[in-house]
């Protein structure tokens, strides 16, 4: 099966587990993507949110810290930004926006705004500094991801407006704006995924330089070695596997990266 389909199933299934868990129908996951309880016992928390709360208050319960460590380790070890492609509901919106943008052939239009890809890292740093200075979790309080995921999980209609606004922003204002330029959570996972093990690997020998992969990749910069030399993608890769799906020549595949060599 195509990786892209499996990943869509994962994105939707996680939201469904939350919805059913909160309704008390299926007691697996309770809470939301900020913090939750797995099987009523294992705490899971968003490590970026916990870090901001910690910087804001300098005290936080051990339950949240344990939960954050679990999630931190999973994403730090498994695959870079796996959260973005396999869990985050925003990805469903922005991928759809990109699809529409392509359909309307807007991609050649100039962007309304030019936001560099490095912007997200400044935003990440700023979120942490502001959390400390203002004594409140700065990004958490304005997080569009929070509004959307809670909107879906706890079904409130105001979120539809936010979802639409994100769609419009990515479709008409900035190409791949939210996920690959603005989102500090994605940047956070890119940073902690620096040493993650599962990566897309390029084998230059098999590559015919058709450049199909560069068309589908939402973070094209990570494929700069394609056609040139062997190598693993950088941690900005969202591990969506699109490139693996599309490459007809078996030049791209998920494999285990040995960080000592790389």
């Amino acid at each position, binding site marked *: 099966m195509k990786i892209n389909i499996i990943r869509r199933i994962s994105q939707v299934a996680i939201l469904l587990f939350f919805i059913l868990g909160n309704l008390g129908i299926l007691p697996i996951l309770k809470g939301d993507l900020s913090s939750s*309880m797995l099987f009523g016992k294992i705490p899971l928390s968003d490590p970026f949110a916990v870090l901001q709360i910690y910087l804001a208050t300098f005290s936080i319960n051990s339950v949240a810290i344990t939960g954050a460590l679990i999630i931190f380790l999973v994403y730090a070890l498994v695959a870079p930004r796996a959260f973005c492609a396999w869990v985050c509901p925003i990805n469903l919106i922005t991928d759809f926006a990109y699809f529409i943008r392509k359909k309307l052939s807007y991609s050649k239009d100039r962007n309304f705004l030019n936001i560099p890809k490095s912007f997200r890292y400044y935003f990440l740093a700023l979120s942490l500094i502001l959390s400390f200075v203002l004594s409140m979790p700065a990004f958490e*309080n304005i997080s569009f991801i929070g509004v959307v995921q809670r909107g879906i999980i706890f079904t409130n209609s105001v979120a539809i407006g*936010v979802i639409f606004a994100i769609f419009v922003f990515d479709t008409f204002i900035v190409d791949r704006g939210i996920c690959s330029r603005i989102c500090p959570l994605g940047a956070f996972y890119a940073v902690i995924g620096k040493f993650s093990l599962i990566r897309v690997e390029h084998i230059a020998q098999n590559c015919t330089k058709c450049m199909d992969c560069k068309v589908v990749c939402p973070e094209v910069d990570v494929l700069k070695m394609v056609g040139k030399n062997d190598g693993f993608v950088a941690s900005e890769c969202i591990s969506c596997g699109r490139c693996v799906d599309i490459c007809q020549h078996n030049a791209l595949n998920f494999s285990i990266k040995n960080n000592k060599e790389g």
Partner: protein
Amino acid sequence: MTRRELLKSGFKVISIALAGGFVWKMASKNDYKVFLRPPGALDEAKFSSKCIKCALCVKACPYDTLKLAKFGDNMTVGTPYFTPREIPCYMCEDIPCVPACPTGALDSSLVSKDDKLDANSIRVGVAVVDMQNCVAYWGIQCDACYRACPLLDKAIYLEYKRNDRTAKHAFLLPVVDAAFCTGCGKCEHACITKKAAIFVLPREVALGEVGDNYVKGWEKDGDSKLQNADTSVKLQEKKAINYLNSEEF
């Protein structure tokens, strides 16, 4: 321009206008609203920075009392609150919402007595009676709030007063004792007037504070508050003398 291009740019303009309008509306909304936090909540600033917005407290509440603030609700998005007029806090004995909180934004030590959760020590707010609109203050018999209070005769008691207008009836006036009131809002929920004449406000909104310079000398240990009192304050004798010498006197 071709038909297709026209449709394309029309779609673009309409979408941007709609989304922009939505964001504008949400950003400029400002209906003032006081809100009540769940039991055990730290003080407002601490609470809203510690809450991770997970709704585990909301889900732990068996009465659907708690809600998460939505975008546009005029409080930190995603934090829990409740509206007693809709659903009050039923002061569960085991206060399930508190231990559910993973971050400590709801602190069990604030609702415990002798290391055990104690619903009577919940202080989510304090009830206030609007004497203008409470019909009991008009002389009409009503004790709905008094009957609804889980701490009947402590948090709300009735004060009897002669009704001079009829000269043969009594007023039965509901009075709130802030020392016992938990702020659960069952009174507000039960109030029979169109908009509740008794309602819960956050304690920091509803209550005053007395400085160290007033002491209940008739109470045992009444002067214990003086232990940490600031004694560096000096009387300005001149000021008093000048005042006595001024023309007005």
